[in-house]
Structures are given as C-alpha cells and as structure tokens.
C-alpha cells in the first residue's frame, strides 16, 4: 500500500512571500527541517508588488534630528484609530530598525542618502520621514533578497501546491493536504504549520492585489478552530490607477505629489488641512470618493495625481516604477501629465487571530504577515508598516514554531480521511456535465463586495449584501469545471479558491454589520462616529457547528491615550 503521508517535515510554511520566507529562514537557523508550500513560485508572491517602503525609526534624514520607536508606535496607534494592540505595536516598532538593517545586510539594495545611509521618505500618517525604500520597488527588492537567503539554505520548496485543508487532532495542527497543481494530485504533508498566505483582496472587483490573493489561510485556519479577527477592516488605497487599479505608491505623495480635482484644485485642504495629501489612507480614500460623488472628479470616475512639478530627474530616480506603470497601463507619462487615480481595495487589516508570538488558538498552527491579525494595524494600517510586519512577525513565527516543536504522532488514517474528503469535493466539481462556472459566481461576489462593503457602508445596504453572499454560497454546489485533465487544471484551482472567498466575504459582512460605528477604514453612513464605549474592541469570529459565531475581545491599550484622530 502506498504511504499516506508523502512528505514529512518539522515545519510547513504555507506561502512563499516575505512573511513565509522570513519565517522559513528563521526556523532553519534552529536546525529544523523546513518546507515552503506555495501555490505559485515564491517570487510571484504579492509581496513583490509593494512599492513605497518599509518603516523604521532610523532617523537617517540629515539635519532634522533623531527619530524614536515610540514616535513610530504613536503614529501607528493613532493611524489604527486606536484599535491596534499597543503591545504588538511596540514589538513592531522597536524591532523595526534591526529588521531593516538585517535585510540590508542580507543584500537588499536600498536607496541611499548622499551620506551613504539608507534613504527615508515621508509617508502618510507619519510625523517623520521614516520610510526606507528601494526606489519604488521595495517589495521586489526585499522578496528577491529573502528568496536568495532561503534558497541558499536547506529549505525544501513545493512550488505550485494549493493547500486544500489543514489536518487537526485534539486542537493540534499536524499538517496539511495540498493539491499538486502540476500533477493534479492531492498529497499529505506532516509538520507544524505557519500560515503566510497573504490577504484576501480579490473578493473585491477593484483591488490592487495580485490575482492570487484569495484568503486561503484565513479559511483553512478557521476550519480547524482558530479565530478570525477584525475581518471588516479593509484598506482602500487612495491612489490606484484608474480602471486597472494597479497600485500607485503613497511614495508618490511622499515625494511631493498633489491630488487635484477637475478644476486642478488641491482638495485635501478640505479634509486634512495639516497633513494634506499625507493624511492616512482611509481619510484620503474617503476624500477622493466624496469629491467624485460631488461631481468634481474627471469623467465622474477619478481624480488626478499630479507629479509634474517634481521634475523629470526626481521622477526618474525615485519613482521609476510608477512612471513605467503609468506609461504601460494608462499611456500617461507622469513627467508630462497627471495620473488618473481612484481608490481601490488594497489590504486586509484583519485575519487569523494570533498573539504577539504568532500563535493561534490551535497548537502547532501559527500565522504571520497579512493573513494574520496580531493586531498591529487596528482599523487602518499606515503605509510602510505592512512590509515591516511581514519580516518582524515572520521571524517571530519561525522562531516560535521551531521552539515549540515536539514529537507528535501524525496518524496516517487521519490524513487519509482528510484527503478523501478533499478528493470528494474535487470530484464533485470535475465530474458534473453541467452547472455554473466559477467565474460567474466570482464576478457577482466581487461586485457585491465593492458595492455593499466598500469605502462607505450602511447597515441596510450591508444586510442586502450579506443576503447576496448567502445566495451565491447556496449556488456553489452547482459549480462545475469542463476541463477534465489533472495537469494544471486552473479552473479547478480557481473554483476551490472561490469557496474560500465566499466564506471570507460572509465573515467580513458579519463583522461589518455588527460594528455600529465608524472607525478607521470601516466608515458607516448610519453611524458616522467612533463609539469607544461599545466598540473599542476586536471582532472575533469562530466556527460553531456550521455557523459563524461572533464575539468581541478587548484591545490591549498601553502608553497612548485613546483620542480623536486629527490630521
């Protein structure tokens, strides 16, 4: 008889982006047998698309004095609309300088000041130029560095493996089942699991995210008893390229770019008179939508991001990638004319609930990066803090998983039953003669999410949205794939992703409907104020039989007093 568990490792990292690779490199240092499973080649992970930079209180900018981690922490907590856990923020900001230095010493080519130090630029919601960058390709540079590090060691890579379930016994995660996309076969892996699967932006039809960001980790963790936290907090990036919604970095405004309405007026003066274009993302995104809804946009769709006054030299040196994107995808040269931009989904603040050591409530299951919620971002993440979170908490997850490793019994029969269950689901999709194709449901889901759970929300509209999500879920069993081949059956993979996305949308909706206030990115037209008495707390979603149970947990407050946000 063929062995059921085909691959045995100490630690299975699911996801090959920055958080996953940082975790893998760390776990390897502890002498563990580490494997990385990714549904794409690691270099194709979404981390590669991060542009503007990574925050750390290095204080490298000449002639403006020192920066301190406490100031970084204050900006982060204020930016989060006080929902971030201050103990988690402290770790993030305290460890930031060493994390950036470590990446530099691993080989990342950061941009430099004339004095040879790592260059830093101003970013939204930050009181100091604190964002280290590699031109406007920071994520690309960091991911390639960590890929270089992780492939020069003894880490086993399983590229193009799609995880279909986690295997759990007595509240302990023992491994996973994954579809080998190339062969079309389900295979069992044993080991502790670190989830690093990224966000779930693709449940929205306007998103900066890579097409692979479908929230796989959140679904997998929830299914075996881990909680999800603050799923309703979705960041909409103010400046995405009109129509294609490709990211136009906040760094463009950090370098001095202006937002202008149809008349050429810098409208941010009306919304954040001090911070102007560099107010936090939630505020700038709402300002743009408001301006467009007032008829002051261009073609009633977008506004202008004007960089022309920065000059050719600065644009070519600091924002070469933005220029390329504008030229390639909009036929606009930002040296000559403004870039058409509109807000688009960008980041998932919520995710798998973890403590400050990246542990979920299930033993042997950890999460780091965008798929996790520590929570360092609360209700609104500051630009430059997501890359930071991936490396700081990826490292912690790798260490913790290595330390906590114990000899556990992985019963073959348990893996077999999980695999057979997943096999059955796959067969139900691939053996029908007719039905609904995944793209039909996916398209409706994405439209529903943007329309009902977008930048501005309203109780009644959200309840209608939830009904639509439920209707789409009810149609899922009719889904079918025409392609009968095993090899690279992408329609099958996308159908399986859709199943995760339908669940995540419901979780998001439940959290959003229940939160009767406006805080950070969650803005309700029927509850326009923040209501600390009732809602200064985290939403927690848990599996209870076949339904989602909603609870709340307290926020870890600390040195920063909860105040109104003003910019």
């Amino acid at each position: 008889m063929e062995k059921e568990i085909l691959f045995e490792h100490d630690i299975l990292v699911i996801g090959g982006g920055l958080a996953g690779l940082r975790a893998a490199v760390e776990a390897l240092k502890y002498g563990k047998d580490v494997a990385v499973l990714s549904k794409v080649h690691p270099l194709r992970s979404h981390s590669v698309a991060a542009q503007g930079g990574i925050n750390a209180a290095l204080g490298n900018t000449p002639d403006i004095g020192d920066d301190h981690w406490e100031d970084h922490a204050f900006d982060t907590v204020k930016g989060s609309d006080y929902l971030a856990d201050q103990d988690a923020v402290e770790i993030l900001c305290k460890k930031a300088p060493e994390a950036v230095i470590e990446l530099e010493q691993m080989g990342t080519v950061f941009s430099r000041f004339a004095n040879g130090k790592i260059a830093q630029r101003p970013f939204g919601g930050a009181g100091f130029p604190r964002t280290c960058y590699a031109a406007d390709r920071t994520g690309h540079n960091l991911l390639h560095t960590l890929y270089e590090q992780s492939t020069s060691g003894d880490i086993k890579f399983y590229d193009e493996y799609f995880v279909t379930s986690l295997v759990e016994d007595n509240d302990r995660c023992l491994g996973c089942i994954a579809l080998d996309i190339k062969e079309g076969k389900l295979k069992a892996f044993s080991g502790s699991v670190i989830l690093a699967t990224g966000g779930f932006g693709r449940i929205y039809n306007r998103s900066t995210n890579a097409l692979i960001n479908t929230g796989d980790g959140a679904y997998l963790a929830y299914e075996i008893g881990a909680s999800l936290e603050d799923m309703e907090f979705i960041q909409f990036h103010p400046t995405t390229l009109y129509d294609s919604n490709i990211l136009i970095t906040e760094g463009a405004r950090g370098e001095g770019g202006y937002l202008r309405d149809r008349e050429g007026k810098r409208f941010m003066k009306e919304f954040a008179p001090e911070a102007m274009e560099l107010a936090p993302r939630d505020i700038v995104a709402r300002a743009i939508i408001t301006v467009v809804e007032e008829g002051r946009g261009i073609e009633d769709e977008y506004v202008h991001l004007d960089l022309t006054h920065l000059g050719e030299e600065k644009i070519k040196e600091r924002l070469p990638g933005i220029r390329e994107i504008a030229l390639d995808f909009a036929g606009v040269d930002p040296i000559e004319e403004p870039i058409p931009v509109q807000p688009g989904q960008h980041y998932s603040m919520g995710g798998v609930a973890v403590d400050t050591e990246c542990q979920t409530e299930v033993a042997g299951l950890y999460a780091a990066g965008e798929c996790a919620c520590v929570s360092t971002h609360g209700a609104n993440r500051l630009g430059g803090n997501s890359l930071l979170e991936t490396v700081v908490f990826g490292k912690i997850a790798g260490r913790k998983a290595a330390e906590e490793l114990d000899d556990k019994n992985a019963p073959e029969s348990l893996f077999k039953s999980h695999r057979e269950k997943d096999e059955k689901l796959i067969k139900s999709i691939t053996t029908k003669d007719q039905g609904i194709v995944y793209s039909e449901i996916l398209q409706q889901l994405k439209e529903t999410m943007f329309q009902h759970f977008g930048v501005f929300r309203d109780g009644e509209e959200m309840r209608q949205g939830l009904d639509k999500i439920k209707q789409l879920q009810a149609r899922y069993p009719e889904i079918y794939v025409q392609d009968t081949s095993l090899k690279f059956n992408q329609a099958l993979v996308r159908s399986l992703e859709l199943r995760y996305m339908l669940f995540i949308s419901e979780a998001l909706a439940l959290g959003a409907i229940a939160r009767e206030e406006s805080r950070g990115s969650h803005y309700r037209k029927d509850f326009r104020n923040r209501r600390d008495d009732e809602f200064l707390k985290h939403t927690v979603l848990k599996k209870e039989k076949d339904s989602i149970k909603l609870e709340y947990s307290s926020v870890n407050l600390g040195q920063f007093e909860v105040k109104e946000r003003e910019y």
Partner: protein
Amino acid sequence: MKFKVFRSNGEKSYYDDFNVPHEPGQTVLDALFYIQEKLDDSLAFRYSCRGAVCGSCAMLINKVPRLACRTQVERLKEGEDNPDIKGYPALKEGEKLNENSLLVEPLPHFPVIKDLIVDTEKFFEYYQELKPCLKTEGKPPEKEYFMEPEDVKELEEYTNCILCAACFAACPVDGENPDFRGPAALAKLYRFHIDVRDQEDRLELADHKDGWWACEFHTNCNKVCPKNVPPNVAIGKARAELKKKKDDK
C-alpha cells in the same frame, strides 16, 4: 479580435482560434482570462500580479517574448511596441505570424508542460548555480553598510530583474547551446560582483565556455526585458575584467 493560441498537454500540440471582444486598455493577459472564463476553461497560463512586477506571465506573443500582462492588445494591433530583435530558429517553428490574428505561444527554449506553461527548472538551476546570495566578510557593522548613491544606481539596473525568463527565451545562443547559463543568471552574478558589500570572488564562477564567453552580443535579452535590464553590458564588462586580470598575470 482573433487570438491564435498554442495548445499542448505536453505530448500533442496544436493551435486554437478564439474570438475575444476588444476593450480599451485590454492586455493579452485580460484576453487569456476571457478565454479561460468564457470560452475554454482548460486553457492554462501562469499569472499573478497583472502589473508587470512578478514575472509569471512571460510568453511568446507575436513571436516576441513578453509579459502578457504588460502587452496592450491595441498597441500590438497597431504594430507598436515591437522590439527589433535578431531572428533565431525557435521563432520559425509553429504557426507563422498572420495579420488577422494575434499569436500567443509558450516561451521557446523551455519544455512545455501545458499550453502556455513551460518548465523553467533549468533557468532557476543556472541561477542557483551562480550562488546569488550576498557574502560579506568579517563582523557586520552595527548599522547598515554605507553605499554611494551612484553605486546604487548601477546596481539597480540589475536588481530590477524579475526573473521572468523572457531573456533566456529570446537569446539565440540559448537556443543553440542549452548549456549557456543565459542572460538573467549572468546579470545576477554581475550584480553581486559589483556590490561593494560583497567579498566573494564571483566572476570565475562563469569563466568558462558556457558562461560569460558564450554570449554573442545579439542584445535580444535587453530588448525584450520588461525591466530594461542590460545583461549584455554586464557580460561585456565581466569579460573585460577577466581579460585584464589574465593579462596582468
């Protein structure tokens, strides 16, 4: 718009014709998704970022290796964005270019797995062989290594590489000599060689007939590179340095 698309299950290969309604701003990747979602869900191609940064979707489009996500159908139709690359045998295989349709094929110089998906194992093997990982010496400084902005500028030309493998598929030498390590791996090696922080002797790693010395400077690599990386420049400089070193001995 008519698309002629290469199909294969790894054994048998053929071409399929698809009609895809044109939309403003449509990229070749958009068209492939239209086909997969509406016309034939068995069509396989790699994708991820759709913004020309991840390097997943390099393929042969109208006989030029390019990223499908970055290639605008409209511009292609108008005959724009056609780099003037030197011809090589792989481009003469398969369907001929035809004015009435857009031709989409897998990257040449790699085995096909399915449809537009190729096996890039060899490409990454060559990359790994040249040990692309910073090696410093001694105790690292407490803070960052200092670097001149000018040095960073030169390095960036090479760190911009996204390892999409378009250059490997465009290189006439790689077509003829499959042992040639190829433009991307050599550019990466050169990137570490010129990094002031790096203390490893690196140029020797490719100082052989299938390394630096195999290049014939057709410059297709640079012409098809979506990030404008110049492997040809790196190779030229590396050779000059090696030659000087030998002459000095």
